C-alpha cells in the first residue's frame, strides 16, 4: 500500500516537474518576445508575447518552483510567491482602476489599456498566470485545498482560452469574477504557505516604509491619470477636428460636383435628345481625369446610352446603381449614390445622379475616390487614418492603403458603433487588427467622416510624457526599499543578536560575548547575561544543597545504624554473661546499651529538627531577638540552665525580619553548646550581644561563653556535618552547629567562631543588614 502511495507521489512529482519546465519555457518565450528588437509579431502570437516582463516573471516563478520544488527552500518559495502575488495584484489593481502610472507597461500585461475591464478578461498572461498558480497549488496543496486550487485552475484556463481565441470583451469573466479569482488565489496562498505568517521585523519595517511611500505614489498616480485624461480629451477634440475637416472636403467636393451635374442636366442638347451634341458638351465641361458623365435611359428598362468614359458610339455596359437612380427619378433632385463597382473600370466609384428635366434621361456624374484619397493623405498626420464611408459603411476614401480598403467595408466593429449615432468617439475598437481610438461624424450628404489613431501611438506619447514621473517614482521606490533594507539591517541585526542571546538564555547555555551597538538592546543582553550567571549560581547552590542532602542522608543513616548494631551485640553479650552469672559485666553492658539508646534518641530528635528547619522558607515575621531568646529559647533550655548553674545575660539585640523557627533553633543550639562545653567545676557564663560589625552591611550577634574553648585547627570542622570534638561520653550528635550554619547561610549570612583552648568560645552570627526590620 505504501508502495502504491509512493508510486502515485512519484508520478505527481514527475508531472509537477514537467509542468514546471513547460512553464519555464513559456516564460522564456515571452521574455524573448518582449526583449526582441524584431517588429511585433502579428495576431495571436503577438498578443501572447505582449505580456510584460512581470507576467513572464510570475510564470517563470511558478515554473521554477514546480521544477525545483524539492531543491528550493520552502521559505524562499513562500517569500517569492508572496512577492509575485503582490506585484500581480498591484498590476491588476492599477489596470482595473485605470490608473496609468507610466511604468504600468511593465506591470500590466499588454501595457496600459483604455478599457481595463475588457482587458482583464482578455489578457492571456493573466490567465496563464492563474493557470500556473492554480496548477502549482493543485499539485502541492493538501487535500482540503486541492478542490479550491483545481477550481481556480479551471477558471483560469477558461480565461486563457477566451483570451487566446481573441474574443473581444469576453463578458463571462467580468470584473467581479476577476477580483474573486484574485481573492481566492490570495486566500489559498495564505492558508497553504504560512497559515498566518509570523511577522519579522523586516516585514514590519518594509510595510512601514511602503505605507510612507504610498501617499506620494498615489499622488503621482493621480497626476499621471489626470494627464492621461487630459491627453485623451485632447485626442477626442483632435479626432472630431479631423473628422470635421475631411467632412468639409467631402461636402465641398460633392456640392461642386452637384452644381456641375445640375448644369449638365439642363443642357439644351439633352432636352432636344441630341446625345452626340451632349457628348461633346459634357466632354468639354468635365475634365476626364476628374470623372465621367453617364446617361441612363429609363424610358423602358434602364440602359446606358452615353458615357464620356468611352468614345461616342462604342458599346456600353449594363447600369449598376439602381437605388440611387430610383431615388433621383422620384425626387427630381441631385442624389448621391453609395460606393459601387464601376461598370467601366471595375474599380470603386460613387456618383451624383439627377433626372434631366423633361426627359427620360438620368444623368450621372462619377465621384472619383482617388481624389478623396489624395486630399485626405495631404492632411493626415502620422499614426492617423482619415476616411469617409458611404451610408452603408463602404469606404469612399481613405488616407492609408486606399487601394486595399476603398470600395470595401471597414472595421465591422467600428461601423457597428458609427451606424448607431451621428457623432461619437470610442476608446477601444480594432482596425486592421490594431486597437485604435475611433471617431466619426455623419455628414449632411449622409456619408460619414471617420478618424482612427493607433492606441500604440497614443501610448508612445503618453509614455514619453510620463517618463519623468515614472523615473521619479522608480527612484523613490528604490530609495524607499534601500531605506527599508538599511533600517531593517540597522535594527534587525541587533534584534537578531538579542534573539540569539535570548535563545542561549532559554537553552541555559552561556550567552556569547555579543554587542549590538544599540544601547537598549545591549542593556537587555547584559541583563540576560547577569540573569544567566545568577541562574548558574543558583543551580550550583542547588546542586550543592542536593549533594549536602544526599550526604546527610548517608551520614544520618550511618549514625542511626551504628547504635543498633551495638545494641544487638550488647544484648547478645548480656544474655551470655547473665547466663554465666557474670552480673558485673552484664550491668556494665546494660549501662552502655542505655547510653546508646539515649544517643539514638537524641540523634533522631536532631534529624527531625534538621528536616523541619533546613531549606524551608517559612513565614517571615518581625522578630525581636532579645524577646525570642529570653522568652522562648531560655524557657526551652530551662532544665539545662538549672543543672549547669549557668549565668546567661542577653543584651540589646536587633529586631529582624525572619522565620521564628529558624532563629529559635539557631540560638537554642548555640546557647546549649555554650552551657554544655563548660570548664570542669566552673559554672558557665554566657552572654548574647549585638557585636561590633566589621562591615556596614552586616548585622552581627555574638554568643560568648567561658567554657573549654576550641583548638583553632577545629574551627572550620565543627560546622561540618556529624563532626564532633568529643567522645560519646559527652552528649552530642555533630549536627547542632551544622544546622546553625545552614540556617544562617539560608539568609545569606555567615557564622564563625573565635576561640582558643581554655579561653572560652565566641560564636559570631553575621546576617545581612537588610534583614533588620524597619
Amino acid at each position, binding site marked *: 500500500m505504501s508502495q502504491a502511495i509512493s508510486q502515485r507521489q512519484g508520478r505527481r512529482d514527475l508531472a509537477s516537474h514537467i509542468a514546471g519546465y513547460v512553464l519555464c519555457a513559456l516564460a522564456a518565450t515571452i521574455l524573448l518576445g518582449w526583449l526582441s528588437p524584431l517588429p511585433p509579431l502579428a495576431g495571436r502570437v503577438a498578443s501572447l508575447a505582449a505580456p510584460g516582463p512581470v507576467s513572464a516573471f510570475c510564470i517563470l516563478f511558478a515554473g521554477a518552483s514546480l521544477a525545483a520544488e524539492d531543491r528550493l527552500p520552502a521559505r524562499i518559495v513562500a517569500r517569492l510567491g508572496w512577492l509575485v502575488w503582490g506585484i500581480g495584484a498591484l498590476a491588476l489593481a492599477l489596470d482595473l482602476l485605470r490608473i496609468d502610472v507610466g511604468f504600468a507597461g511593465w506591470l500590466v500585461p499588454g501595457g496600459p489599456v483604455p478599457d481595463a475591464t475588457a482587458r482583464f478578461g482578455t489578457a492571456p498572461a493573466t490567465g496563464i498566470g492563474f493557470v500556473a498558480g492554480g496548477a502549482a497549488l493543485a499539485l502541492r496543496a493538501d487535500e482540503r485545498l486541492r478542490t479550491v486550487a483545481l477550481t481556480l485552475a479551471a477558471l483560469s484556463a477558461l480565461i486563457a482560452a477566451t483570451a487566446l481565441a481573441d474574443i473581444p470583451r469576453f463578458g463571462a469573466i467580468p470584473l467581479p469574477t476577476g477580483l474573486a479569482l484574485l481573492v481566492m488565489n490570495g486566500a489559498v496562498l495564505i492558508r497553504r504557505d504560512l497559515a498566518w505568517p509570523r511577522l519579522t521585523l523586516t516585514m514590519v519595517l518594509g510595510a512601514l516604509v511602503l505605507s510612507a511611500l504610498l501617499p506620494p505614489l498615489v499622488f503621482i498616480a493621480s497626476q499621471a491619470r489626470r494627464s492621461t485624461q487630459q491627453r485623451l480629451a485632447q485626442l477626442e477634440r483632435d479626432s472630431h477636428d479631423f473628422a470635421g475637416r475631411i467632412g468639409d472636403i467631402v461636402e465641398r467636393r460633392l456640392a461642386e460636383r452637384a452644381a456641375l451635374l445640375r448644369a449638365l442636366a439642363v443642357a439644351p442638347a439633352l432636352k432636344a435628345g441630341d446625345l452626340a451634341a451632349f457628348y461633346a458638351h459634357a466632354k468639354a465641361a468635365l475634365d476626364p481625369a476628374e470623372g465621367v458623365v453617364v446617361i441612363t435611359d429609363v424610358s423602358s428598362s434602364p440602359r446606358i446610352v452615353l458615357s464620356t468614359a468611352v468614345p461616342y458610339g462604342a458599346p456600353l455596359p449594363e447600369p449598376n446603381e439602381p437605388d440611387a437612380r430610383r431615388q433621383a427619378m422620384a425626387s427630381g433632385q441631385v442624389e448621391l449614390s453609395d460606393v459601387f463597382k464601376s461598370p467601366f473600370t471595375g474599380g470603386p466609384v460613387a456618383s451624383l445622379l439627377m433626372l434631366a428635366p423633361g426627359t427620360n434621361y438620368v444623368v450621372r456624374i462619377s465621384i472619383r475616390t482617388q481624389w478623396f484619397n489624395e486630399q485626405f493623405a495631404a492632411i493626415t498626420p502620422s499614426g492617423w487614418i482619415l476616411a469617409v464611408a458611404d451610408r452603408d459603411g463602404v469606404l469612399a476614401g481613405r488616407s492609408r492603403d486606399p487601394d486595399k480598403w476603398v470600395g470595401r467595408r471597414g472595421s465591422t466593429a467600428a461601423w457597428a458603433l458609427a451606424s448607431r449615432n451621428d457623432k461619437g468617439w470610442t476608446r477601444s475598437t480594432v482596425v486592421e487588427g490594431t486597437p485604435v481610438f475611433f471617431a466619426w461624424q455623419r455628414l449632411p450628404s449622409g456619408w460619414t467622416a471617420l478618424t482612427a489613431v493607433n492606441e500604440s501611438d497614443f501610448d508612445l506619447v503618453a509614455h514619453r510624457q510620463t517618463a519623468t514621473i515614472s523615473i521619479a517614482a522608480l527612484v523613490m521606490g528604490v530609495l524607499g526599499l534601500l531605506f527599508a533594507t538599511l533600517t531593517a539591517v540597522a535594527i534587525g541585526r541587533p534584534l537578531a543578536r538579542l534573539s540569539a542571546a535570548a535563545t542561549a538564555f532559554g537553552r541555559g547555555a552561556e550567552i556569547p560575548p555579543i554587542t549590538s551597538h544599540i544601547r537598549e538592546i545591549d542593556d537587555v543582553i547584559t541583563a540576560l547575561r547577569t540573569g544567566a550567571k545568577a541562574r548558574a549560581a543558583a543551580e550550583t547552590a542547588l546542586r550543592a544543597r542536593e549533594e549536602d542532602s544526599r550526604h546527610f542522608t*548517608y*551520614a544520618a*543513616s*550511618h*549514625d542511626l*545504624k*551504628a547504635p543498633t*548494631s*551495638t545494641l*544487638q*551485640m*550488647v544484648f547478645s*553479650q548480656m544474655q551470655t554473661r547473665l547466663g554465666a552469672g557474670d552480673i558485673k*559485666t552484664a550491668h*556494665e*553492658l546494660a549501662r*552502655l*546499651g542505655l*547510653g*546508646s539508646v539515649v544517643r539514638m534518641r537524641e540523634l533522631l530528635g536532631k534529624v527531625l529538627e534538621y528536616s523541619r528547619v533546613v531549606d524551608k522558607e517559612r513565614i517571615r515575621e518581625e522578630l525581636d531577638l532579645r524577646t525570642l531568646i529570653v522568652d522562648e529559647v531560655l524557657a526551652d533550655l530551662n532544665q539545662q540552665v538549672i543543672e549547669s548553674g549557668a549565668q546567661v545575660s542577653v543584651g540589646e539585640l536587633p529586631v529582624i525580619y525572619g522565620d521564628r523557627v529558624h532563629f529559635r533553633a539557631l540560638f537554642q543550639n548555640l546557647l546549649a553548646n555554650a552551657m554544655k562545653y563548660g570548664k570542669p567545676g566552673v559554672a558557665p557564663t554566657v552572654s548574647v550581644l549585638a557585636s561590633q560589625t566589621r562591615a556596614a552591611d552586616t548585622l552581627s550577634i555574638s554568643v560568648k561563653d567561658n567554657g573549654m574553648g576550641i583548638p583553632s585547627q*577545629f574551627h572550620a570542622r565543627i560546622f561540618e556535618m*556529624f*563532626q*564532633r*570534638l*568529643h*567522645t*560519646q*561520653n559527652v552528649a552530642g550528635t*555533630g549536627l547542632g552547629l551544622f544546622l546553625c550554619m545552614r540556617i544562617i547561610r539560608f539568609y545569606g549570612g555567615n557564622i564563625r567562631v573565635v576561640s582558643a583552648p581554655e579561653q572560652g568560645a565566641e560564636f559570631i552570627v553575621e546576617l545581612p543588614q537588610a534583614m533588620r526590620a524597619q
Partner: protein
Amino acid sequence: MTAPIQTLMLIDDNEADTFLCRLMIEEAGLADNLLVFNLAEDALAYLRANPGPIDAILLDIRMPRMSGFEFIEAALAEFGSTFAKAVIVMLTTSLDMNDKMRAEQFGVIKGYFEKPLSQTQLETIAAMVSGSQ
C-alpha cells in the same frame, strides 16, 4: 600459650563498641596485649611514647577530632615504615561508599570490616597477622 597477636590496638570513640570488642578478644584469647583508645589523638600520643611494634590496629573511621584516615596519615608521616608493618583493619558501620573507596587507596589498610565485630573476623585478623610475619 602465646596468643596469635602480641599487641592489638583498638581505636573507637564508642564506649559500648570498645567494651564489646574487648570482651570478644579476651574471650577468644586473641591478643596478649590489648590497647584501647577512645580518641585517635590519644593513640598517636601512645605510639609516640612507646615505639615498640604494634601487630594489628582495629580502627574506627568516624571519630571526633581526628578520623581514622587522618590517624593513618598522621601516623605514617610520623612513624613511617614502622607503623606500616602493622595490620590495619578499618572497623566501621559506614554506608558511605566514599569511605570505602578512600580506604582502598591506603595501601596499609588490609581490611574493611563492618561492625559488629564477629568471631570469624577476629580469626581473619589473626591469620593476617601471622601471615605478615
